[in-house]
């Protein structure tokens, strides 16, 4: 899920929760507040009644009767005073809710009751206020607030969404330009992403700095390999030629010749490693042009032709089932040949007597794949992850463990994905996947 969507979702949920809690607690809040204000009102009214009684005597209300009762017109409030027996005495006033039936109406009241004495008689004062209108308001208030909150939530969500989109736009550009559309070695585009957000500015700058550093570290490594190899080749040349001249001396004893040839072999090995490293540095350094167009099938046949004696020696049969019309473009023929040559030589070297090599192609999801399958001894799972690492092959085989590194470097240079599938004792399959840019279907 994208950051923008996540944040919008979070804001939506948090707002819904907060507003939900508010709307659902609104009635009880309202009730509590209205009860509080009614109670205050009732107490003030009671004080007024007592003030009247104090000033004018109880008869001001009773007018010689035993009880007094008065309603407002709409029966919203009432006051009543009536004589009660002494047992009805209560210490202080109390307020509670009661339903009263007045005429044909059933009305819920909040009623303050207060018992007081006057001339040895006990009287109960009741002041009541109807709660009907309050309930009416409460429902209305809840509905209106619910409506407003929904509208507000929607508006703020839209605002959030669009604001976040705008806010995160630089971030999206950073991801797209610096991360997704980048390929190593990075093509450093120094136009900074436009943003006023400091964090994004920092992120963009840091990423650029990182890429520059990675690029220059890679470049330094490559240059070092190239320069060191060059420098090493000269003394190797001198030694090689010195030894060669020495071997031509007719007075040499056979054992002396043997030792000279030993030295020469060691030196050849050194020279070969250096040359292979130089070759790798050149491939990695993109020093080979990518302008050739050719039929891979033709190259495959060339590779097998080169290796015919070895195939015959081990009596290996091979089959090439590859579309003859397919054309590779933006490639380097020489490097492509090297890559296949190395893979096929491995397929022969690690094959068994009377074994097989099968090469077939496949067109899958817009990609073109070449599979080189052998019936050889296979590769143990433990060795697979380091297969393409430099100098990873086991010693004592007379090889230097650079063949598959060269394959990998060439594959990387042309954006070819290479995978190896192997079962010890059964065989190995190298699969090369070419992207759309590198081939033309007939």
């Amino acid at each position, binding site marked *: 899920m994208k950051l923008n969507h996540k944040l919008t979702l979070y804001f939506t949920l948090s707002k819904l929760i907060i507003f939900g809690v508010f709307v659902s607690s609104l009635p009880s809040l309202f009730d509590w507040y209205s009860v509080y204000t009614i109670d205050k009102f009732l107490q003030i009214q009671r004080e007024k009644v007592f003030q009247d009684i104090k000033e004018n005597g109880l008869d001001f209300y009773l007018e010689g009767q035993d009880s007094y009762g008065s309603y407002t017109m709409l029966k919203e409030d009432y006051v009543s005073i009536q004589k009660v027996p002494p047992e009805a005495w209560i210490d202080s006033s109390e307020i509670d809710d009661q339903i009263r039936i007045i005429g044909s109406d059933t009305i819920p009241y909040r009623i303050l009751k207060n018992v007081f004495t006057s001339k040895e008689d006990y009287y109960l004062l009741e002041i009541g206020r109807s709660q009907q209108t309050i309930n009416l308001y409460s429902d209305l208030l809840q509905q209106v607030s619910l409506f407003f909150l929904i509208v507000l939530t929607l508006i703020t969500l839209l605002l959030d969404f669009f604001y976040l989109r705008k806010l995160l736009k630089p971030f999206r550009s950073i991801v797209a330009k610096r991360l997704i559309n980048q390929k190593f070695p990075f093509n450093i585009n120094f136009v900074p992403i436009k943003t006023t957000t400091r964090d994004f500015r920092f992120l963009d700058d840091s990423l650029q700095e990182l890429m520059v550093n990675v690029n220059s570290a890679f470049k330094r490594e490559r240059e070092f390999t190239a320069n060191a190899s060059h420098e090493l080749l000269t003394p190797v040349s001198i030694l090689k030629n010195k030894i060669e001249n020495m071997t031509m001396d007719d007075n040499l004893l056979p054992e002396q010749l043997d030792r000279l040839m030993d030295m020469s*072999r060691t030196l050849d090995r050194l020279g070969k490693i250096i040359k292979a490293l130089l070759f790798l540095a050149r491939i990695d350094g993109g020093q080979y042009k990518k302008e050739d167009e050719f039929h891979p099938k033709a190259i495959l046949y060339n590779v097998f032709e080169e290796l015919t004696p070895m195939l015959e020696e081990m009596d290996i049969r091979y089959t090439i089932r590859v579309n003859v019309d397919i054309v590779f473009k933006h490639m380097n023929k020489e490097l492509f040949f090297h890559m296949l040559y190395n893979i096929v030589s491995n397929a022969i070297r690690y094959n068994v007597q009377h074994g097989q090599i099968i090469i077939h192609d496949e067109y899958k999801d817009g990609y073109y794949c070449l599979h080189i399958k052998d019936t050889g001894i296979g590769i143990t799972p433990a060795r697979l992850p380091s297969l393409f690492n430099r100098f990873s092959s086991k010693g004592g085989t007379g090889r230097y463990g650079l063949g598959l590194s060269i394959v990998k470097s060439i594959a990387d240079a042309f954006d070819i994905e290479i995978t190896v599938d192997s079962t010890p004792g059964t065989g190995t399959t190298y699969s090369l996947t070419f992207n759309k840019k590198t081939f033309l279907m007939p």
Partner: protein
Amino acid sequence: MKILLIDDENELCDEIVLFLERYQYECHNVGTKQEALSILMNKHYDFVLLDLGLPDGNGLDILKNIKENLPDTLVVILSAKGDIEHRINGLEQGADDYLPKPFSLAELHARIQAIIRRKYGTQGQNIKVGDFEVNLQNRTVDYRGIQITLYKKEFDILSYLLLNKNRPLSRTQLYEYVWGDLSLSEGDSNYIDVHIKNIRKKLSAYAKVDWLESVRGIGYKVNVIK
């Protein structure tokens, strides 16, 4: 045959000169572009062995000069810049061959011989070896008039051994000569054994091939009675 070696690596030059003199070439050595240009104006050389990285300039300038003024002089570029681009560039500018360093002296000899054959278009004498006759120019092997077919690489190996007759060549030397650039790859110098085996098999159907000798621990040698 006169050869001018233009290279500033003295130790290397000494060895090359020593080797070439052994094969009866007359060989001089200069170490700078300036010296080279002046000596070329005054003396005739059949061959120039040219290093590209000279202390006072690019060897390609000398190549250009030779091609303009001395069209008969053959040029072999010797360079540590052995990659294909440099090579093509050198050959496009008129070099007759390009030998990447480090090279084997035996290979230098073989290349010089090949250029001479190409240049003078001589049918070349047949080289007699055992009961066989080998023609390097036509790339044929005959047994009393019967032509024996060898694979290209098999012939390359045989001719390389013949050019360096009576001295052992290591498998690596043979491999580098025959496979050239591919010797960088994970090819195997044991492939040479396979080829030698095939050569022996093909030839021994006609006559003995005891002149093609395995040298224990080293490689192979062709013995030709002097």
